[in-house]
């Protein structure tokens, strides 16, 4: 069937084409504004301090020979004033790995319990746990600092009788203090994310397993964990980025063995001196999260949606 060709007037068509491409222009303009700053930092990290102070980074193309790895060499070299960046990187890793693995393990059990076990006060407890997502971390810092440094004591008011609830475990100012704190702060979101996923698994799977005589532990270990792998990955990416990029908790709890973010803020704090090193340092800190982000973006988005769209 050949429809009678109704050719629209060429000017109208051109107009419509122009309007149709407008979203592309606007979006890519925003993309440009959103990526240029990071790119500028990247370019500047290869420039000498004289160049940085005298010309814009966009002029670096004029003399590519002036680019140098010196800034990177400097930050990875140990000096009397400043330890090498490697040391800060290892400190970061020492915090991030336990702070990512342990909350997942703890939260997965809890999420299964809340999703597939009946018990009194279940909804109430779940709501209380999850509502802690919005609690500002600042609310816990002073007591946690005291707990890690001195343990916890309870004084019964009238009797003037003090007794030790938690002894001084000697973890003040260590990576353990930081990742334990990250674990507690990350758990509410972890439980919410995993609960949303695990509670959506088909009921029939669990019923069949129960009839076969499987215990809750077997169901959890053999069925739920393998099925929930996407949700576990989503939260892992989330928690990794959050703990790697954290500055506040480390700055509050540590006075030495600091992670990279604290080192960078200290570097920025001494305005003027070592100005050129901040770009290389900032880029070194960003590299790993950016790799994780670009390679595992799918999981990250899934976690984001599970945590906010549903829930």
């Amino acid at each position: 069937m050949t429809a009678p060709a109704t050719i629209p007037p060429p000017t109208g068509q051109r107009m419509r084409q122009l309007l149709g491409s407008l979203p592309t222009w606007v979006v890519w303009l925003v993309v440009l504004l959103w990526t240029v700053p990071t790119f500028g930092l990247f370019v500047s990290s290869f420039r000498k301090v004289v160049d940085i102070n005298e010309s814009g980074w966009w002029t670096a193309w004029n003399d590519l020979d002036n680019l140098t790895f010196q800034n990177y060499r400097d930050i990875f070299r140990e000096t009397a004033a400043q330890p090498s960046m490697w040391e800060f990187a290892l400190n970061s890793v020492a915090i991030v790995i336990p702070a990512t693995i342990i909350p997942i393990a703890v939260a997965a059990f809890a999420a299964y319990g809340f999703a597939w076990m009946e018990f009194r006060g279940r909804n109430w407890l779940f709501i209380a746990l999850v509502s802690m997502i919005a609690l500002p971390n600042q609310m816990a810092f002073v007591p946690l600092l005291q707990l890690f440094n001195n343990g916890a004591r309870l004084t019964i008011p009238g009797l003037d009788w003090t007794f030790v609830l938690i002894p001084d475990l000697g973890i003040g100012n260590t990576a353990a203090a930081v990742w334990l704190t990250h674990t507690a702060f990350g758990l509410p979101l972890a439980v919410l994310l995993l609960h949303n996923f695990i509670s959506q698994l088909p009921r029939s799977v669990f019923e069949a397993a129960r009839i076969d005589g499987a215990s809750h532990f077997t169901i959890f270990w053999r069925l739920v964990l393998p099925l929930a792998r996407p949700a576990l990955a989503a939260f892992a990416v989330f928690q990794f980025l959050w703990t790697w990029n954290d500055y506040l908790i480390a700055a509050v709890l540590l006075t030495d063995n600091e992670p990279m973010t604290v080192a960078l803020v200290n570097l920025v704090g001494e305005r003027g001196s070592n100005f050129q090193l901040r770009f290389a340092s900032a880029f070194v800190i960003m590299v790993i999260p950016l790799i994780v982000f670009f390679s595992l973006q799918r999981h990250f988005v899934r976690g984001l949606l599970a945590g906010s769209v549903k829930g």
Partner: protein
Amino acid sequence: MDQFITMIITVVVSLAAAAIVFVGADRAVDQAVPRWPVFTGAAGAVAGLVLGAAAQHNGWVPAGPAVGGPLKAGWLIILAGAAVGAALAAGAGRLLQPPRERRNAWESRLRPWVFAGPALAFVAIGLVIPGLRTVFLSFKNGPRGREPGFTLEHYTDIFTDDEYFTVEGWAQIFTSRLFIAGLAAAVVAAAAAWASAARIVGTTKQIAAASRLMKALGLAAAVLVVAPIVGFVESLARDPNQSAIMDVLTVIVSSRVSLWVVVVLAAGSLLVWTLSRIRSQRLELDWGAPSSSMMLALAAVLLVFGALSTLHAVVWNNVWWVVTVAGLSTALGLMLAVLAERARGERFAKTLIFMPMAISMVGAAVIWDFMYEVQPTGNQTGLFNAVLQGLGFSSRGFFINSSMIPWNNFWIMFIMVWIQTGFAMVVLSAAIRAVPDELLEAARVDGASETQSFWRVVMPQIRPTIIVVVTTLIVIVTKVFDLVKATTNGANRTNVLANEMFDQLRDRNFTSSSAFAVVLLALVVPVMIFNIRRLQKDLA
């Protein structure tokens, strides 16, 4: 390197310990039905362990001679406690064995706690109890809270210090040009809402009046868009010490033509609106129409900016942060989500806009500090100042100079917008995708244009998601800290509550630090209550 090895050992040991405790508890509960004494014995061992540890650390039992080696006397007391507890409880369990149904009940009642217990304990010890203690500390005497007695001093310190909280100069809000423009915009929004309603369900006369009104409002919108652009370029040359955003906003009202147009239109539309309401039946105002809701948003932004840029104190600044970042990121994210669907290279563009989410706030501060860089003489090395210089305008120190107050705050807030827009965009674009096709198809069949079906079908559908995005952003932005710390550290009236809380903590003023934390909490309590309501509805 030592740190690294210690970490690996810690992870392995703590995971193994957790696994042993968990499996042990699970197996112990397993025994409740077949072998009750084993179950009670295990429970007794745990109770004995805790009591033994308490006895040891509180010196209830005189510590005997040290055994030497790793087995110190303290450990002996703890182990003895466990052994005695286990023996006593197992014996009691043997004597008093409940009937089978009761044992079954015990088993199913305890099992959930084996699963949920660790998480609950972590959150209780790491968040809830410390939170309560922070509230307690904020009322205690002395900087460390060690002195006896309670006081409201730490709160009165905050709310009587002009640096932290003041309403001084509040009257200037009503004379600020931004605020007046906001009021005018609100009236225009109301008129647009009326016009839209009249067009849909009004009488013939109302429809005629409405289309006249709509034409006038269209003119107003054109003026509102063109005037600031002209004025912006003009003002860049005129007044180098004003920030660009200030220029945009003031020019809307300061250039005489646009001010008169807006005021006359506002008054005129108010008149038309009231007259028509008197002459005929009342119309339900149509706030969901594109024109009225966009005008309303503009009005809200102008009113809030007018009020919060006039009041200067840390608490107000924090509120300004929340409103600006939550509002701008959501609006921009929604716009990008809609546009990206029609753009080429959608996925790649979205990924790049989303990328700042992976960058730490500290890194973002370094990046933007460099973009805003200003050189007193010679070539500008900061991108923005270089662009200004290239266009022949003078440079400005976006958040370095005190001459920028209060708009220096805005440029730091923008860094947060840069980070959070991607989040809003990704979540909202997923929500837009989730709108059922049948609804859009039905709208199309009814002859709705693309704009209409977005405002009338998509917007109501994604409203819950917008609310979630906004509340999430409120929670994140209220406790903003890293950005301010790494850019200005609170200088030139850019301070926020979390930064002040941190500084007090560093100075070991634990009680006043706690008071700042409680003020932060107070700001997010409405969101917490809202979230709890939503969860209750979801679980019901």
